């Protein structure tokens, strides 16, 4: 599965990582909803770490679209909150 970390790059991720990715994604959402800064930072960092560690970076000339697009690594809790409510990272 091809995953993009916004402002960083695309990775090809083996399928067996997906369950763990989902767990971390849910942990991140829970932390955002609880407005728990520390939990958000650690869950999201772990999620990104998993992608970087298990994924193979795609070449710059790859023209494949990503199945999954993650927000930028320097995302703040406030910005993460806006993903669900406000305009989000990309204006509509």
């Amino acid at each position, binding site marked *: *599965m091809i995953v*993009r970390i*916004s*402002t*960083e*790059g695309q990775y090809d991720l083996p399928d067996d990582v*997906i369950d763990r*990715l*989902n767990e971390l*994604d*849910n942990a*991140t*959402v829970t932390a*955002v909803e609880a407005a728990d800064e520390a939990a958000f930072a650690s869950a999201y960092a772990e999620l990104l770490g998993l992608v970087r560690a298990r994924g193979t970076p795609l070449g*710059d*000339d*790859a*023209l*494949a*679209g*990503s*199945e*999954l*697009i*993650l*927000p*930028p690594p*320097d995302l703040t809790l406030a910005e*993460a909150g806006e*993903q*669900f409510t406000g305009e*989000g*990272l*990309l204006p*509509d």
Partner: protein
Amino acid sequence: MPGIGGRFSTVIKAKISKLLDRAEDPGETLDYSYNKQLELLQNVKKGIAEVVTSKKRLQMQQDRLQQSVVKLDTQARQALAAGNEDLARAALERKQLAQNELQSLDQQVSELQDQQEKLTSSEQKLRTKIEAFRTKKEVVKAQYSAAEAQVQISEAATGVGEQMADVGLAMQRAMDKTEQMRARASAVEELEAAGTFEDVTALGPGEDDIDRQLKQLTSDSQVDTELAKMKAELGSPSSGSAGQIEGGESS
């Protein structure tokens, strides 16, 4: 793969798809869409140049403040040696303020540097993808029927479009940071214009007002501590040539 990436990541994906849908016009020819890509690449370059300019402005401000810190420290010592403690205190207050500003500038310059690097790397990827698109476009034009070409090229265009959205996001974040820095830089420039970091011995009629503001901005205890330290250094009856003793140990 149900629920992949959960809610968190799918929001962004949906937004990018929306952007791409809007950008994709079936009537556009391949060459037109390639030219459009090149045009957008030019905009990215302009954006990077803007970030670099803002960073340079902050760096020049850093240099000026660094010079002020050295100058004010020297003046405080000279004033103290001449027995003028009030003047020494005034110089140290200004020095402390300059140091505070310097500290926050350092942090902001490095943040801006970080944004610039991300933006540059994203732009490089976009450039490479556009080049790959150009190659693919020529192959498709030469070898495929219209219907096949449509599929081939729309896949490739998705790849380029996604990178374009990514560079747009990197640009937006860099610009937001730059905007914050600009406000900061203006605030420091106002202090500079008011002569806050200027030669303390050449203070003009406005000094009372500046001093009053400084008292609010700097912490007395820190200034007191540094003043005491400076006094001890100047006043300590050192044997032999003063100021050479500590440095001499390491030789």
